[in-house]
């Protein structure tokens, strides 16, 4: 299954030809009623990222060029665009990694409705975020603390690195090519969020019906486009989506195994890692039962 990310990944690493005095960006300009690519040529300064060049075009030639950006440091996930057809953060794409003897194409994320120029309507993602029941911890320890082992929090922290650039949502073909799937599909970013909550050592809520029935984890057929495009290197498919799929299946076919997995050793004073019970492959209840977590089996 070809995707935008894999077909157009032929960005080159041989850098800018020495001495080429200018660079040309071919920017999509327009709105919901239509638009076209416009070439802008500026001085080649070297050591820049695509967003630096876009800013110089704004300042010198096209002051009304619409573009989102905030941190210019790869931390906020605002400046997503398709560079030579490949979904990227503009602030994290060095000009030296692109061929500059021909114009560099910069277009808006294709899966979102256009607002203007490089700015698209991302409201779908914010609507999905509101569907997810929040973290609900169990009670504190007697000394008022919550105890967790570093090895367990690292599993959760992988997903919390997400900067919400929504590039994964953009390349996911379940919604990129099928607008009709959007009402019943959360998308990779939110599967990572759900996996984070499900694997959080302190969380007590059961979201599995929601994940399978309303958020459509079953629609994903594991092409890993989301993982490939993630600028934070989160293993969305292997570490989030596949474990979620397994949990949902377990819940349907094997409630005893699910119950075993929910049962935890009391983590005090030195918390025993529960990672084994939460690993993608750890489907049956390896952890010995001393206390029931306060959620009921289905």
């Amino acid at each position, binding site marked *: 299954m070809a995707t935008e990310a894999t077909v157009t990944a032929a960005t080159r690493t041989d850098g800018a030809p020495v001495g080429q005095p200018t660079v040309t960006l071919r920017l999509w300009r327009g709105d919901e009623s239509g638009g076209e690519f416009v070439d802008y040529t500026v001085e080649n300064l070297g050591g820049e990222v695509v967003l630096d060049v876009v800013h110089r075009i704004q300042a010198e030639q096209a002051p*009304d060029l619409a573009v989102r950006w905030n941190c210019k440091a790869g*931390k*906020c996930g605002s400046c997503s665009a398709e560079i030579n057809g490949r979904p990227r953060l503009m602030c994290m794409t060095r000009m030296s990694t692109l061929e500059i003897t021909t114009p560099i194409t910069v277009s808006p994320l294709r899966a979102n409705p256009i607002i203007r120029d490089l700015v698209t309507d991302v409201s779908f993602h914010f609507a999905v975020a509101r569907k997810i029941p*929040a973290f609900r911890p169990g009670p504190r320890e007697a000394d008022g603390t919550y105890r967790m082992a570093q090895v367990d929090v690292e599993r959760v922290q992988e997903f919390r690195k997400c*900067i919400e650039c929504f590039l994964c949502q953009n390349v996911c073909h379940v919604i990129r090519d099928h607008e009709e799937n959007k009402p019943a599909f959360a998308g990779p970013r939110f599967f990572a969020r759900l996996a984070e909550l499900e694997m959080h050592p302190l969380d007590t809520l059961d979201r599995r019906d929601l994940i399978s029935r309303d958020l459509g984890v079953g629609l994903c057929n594991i092409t890993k486009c989301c993982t490939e495009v993630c600028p934070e290197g989160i293993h969305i498919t292997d570490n989030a989506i596949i474990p979620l799929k397994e949990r949902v299946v377990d819940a349907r076919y094997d409630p005893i195994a699910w119950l075993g997995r929910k049962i935890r050793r009391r983590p005090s004073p030195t918390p025993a890692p529960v990672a084994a019970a939460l690993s993608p492959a750890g489907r049956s209840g390896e952890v010995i039962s001393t206390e029931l977590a306060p959620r009921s089996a289905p």
Partner: protein
Amino acid sequence: MAEYETHTLDVLIIGAGGAGLRAAVEASATGARTALVCKSLLGKAHTVMAEGGVAAALGNVWPEDNWKVHFRDTMRGGKMLNNWRMAQIHAQEAPDRVLELEEWGAVFDRTPDGRILQRDFGGHRYARLAHVGDRTGLELLRTCQQRAVSLGIEVFMECKIVRLLTDSSGAVNGAVGFWRESGKFVVFGAKAIVLAAGGVGKTWKFTSNSWEGTGDGHALALWAGADMIDMECVQFHPTGMVWPPSARGLLVTEGVRGDGGVLRNSDGERFMFNYIPEFYAKETADTIEEGDQWYENKTDFRRPPELLPRDEVARAINSEVKAGRGSPHGGVFLDIASRRSPEYIKRRLPSMYHQFKELADVDITAEPMEIGPTCHYIMGGIRVEADTAATTVAGLFAAGEVAGGMHGANRLGGNSLSDLLVFGRRAGKYAAEHALGRSGDVEIDDAQVDAVAQHALAPFARDGENPYSVHHALQETMQSLVGIIRTESELVEARDALDKLDERAAKAAVEGHRQFNPGWHLALDLESMLAVARCTTLGAIERKESRGGHTRDDYPGPDPAFGKVNMVTRVRDGEVVVAPEPLLEMPDELKTLFEEAH
């Protein structure tokens, strides 16, 4: 008048970074109708850039730590110019705010016995910063964002507020803005408003701040009649990247120095040992040998001078560069590569490593970084009442970077994330209390709204220069004349230059139409930046001493007389005026904390 989209609320919160979100959660919990409005998308605020951690005397690593030590560190770091009551509340409440984040789903790094791990940072006596690798700000913002979303709080995204509205008594009762997407105006009626709009960095040429840091909150308050304090106290982070351009302005966390990184000049010398001020001499190692042993044994050895408060480090770097011992691009070298293994660096500073490799093709495990002072944070801001976060204008509250007083003349690393949680919560609580205690409906003055709308649209009808060129000129002016090291003649020159820049900005013209037009947005942000620049410049002229983030070449030392006053800027008869006013007097029982030997 024209018809405008109108929303009526009890509490309107302007800004959706950590402070705004925390305020919204608190205000909403009281039952007040609460909404957030932000200039970007939700979750993109500058809070995500904070790396090191959130300072709170939890005592998980050092049981000796407590609020009194944190308070004392904060006051001393702020060169005693802080609002003592804010510093006290902050130190007392920060631990609860951190534990509360954990209850909302934040996942901090852990101690071996499973509690929240804390790390060392410049100016903090004990390892005190709860952290998540080096992306603590993102964790804090995402946690508050998810909390606000779960409470169903309304968020108006990508909306720029142009002016606050006031009633006949001078109290605020609303705001006028426009949707960036459509350019259409929107009116918010509100019984109380919380400003949580962050900082001002885009006024300078080299800054770590994101595009939103244009001083909107400061300017909105100033125009509504509020007092500003100590706007001259601006923090330049000592270690921002100066090369290559793709990384310029990016901060290198102090954690690099906490984990063994050292500063060197072009001769390869560890020059910080030449810049240990008397004030910190007792607790700072004076030989390389002692400093190097501290990383492993913090009880028997004193900390190396690379971990002095950041203003001291910035000043030392500036002196080295001026003495001709700088790096090729006008900074100095920050070297961790020669002192720690690549594996150690990657484990301790994962996103820093990732960021520089990806962004600038710089491998921090293999080569030193080229760094220099970069505008990072403004300590000064809107004058607030410590307990309630109320400004000097009725109904208007402020929290986070936009508020002044908490950090005095210099902010310690880690104290901003705790600040925005502690005072974000208080601003939300007391704004809601104010709103719910205010009877009757809000009456919006249509004439005020029309005037704001006309003013905002004026750049489309003009035929002057591009706002980008005015912005560049402002940044050059502030960088060269009101930068890290200041002097009377240059400050006066800057003041005169600002008069001319005001005129240029008033003539600046915008191309195109109102739909998502960054040129138009910049034309309006420029007004905010110019207002902030004037407050900073006037304060800097009047504060004839060096203290914390405010360094005067012509007055190199602190002056006890200036140590007793806030420099207050406010608008009177249409002009920004400046006057010193006495600090709050610290009670005797707190004063004794500074007399104890330690």
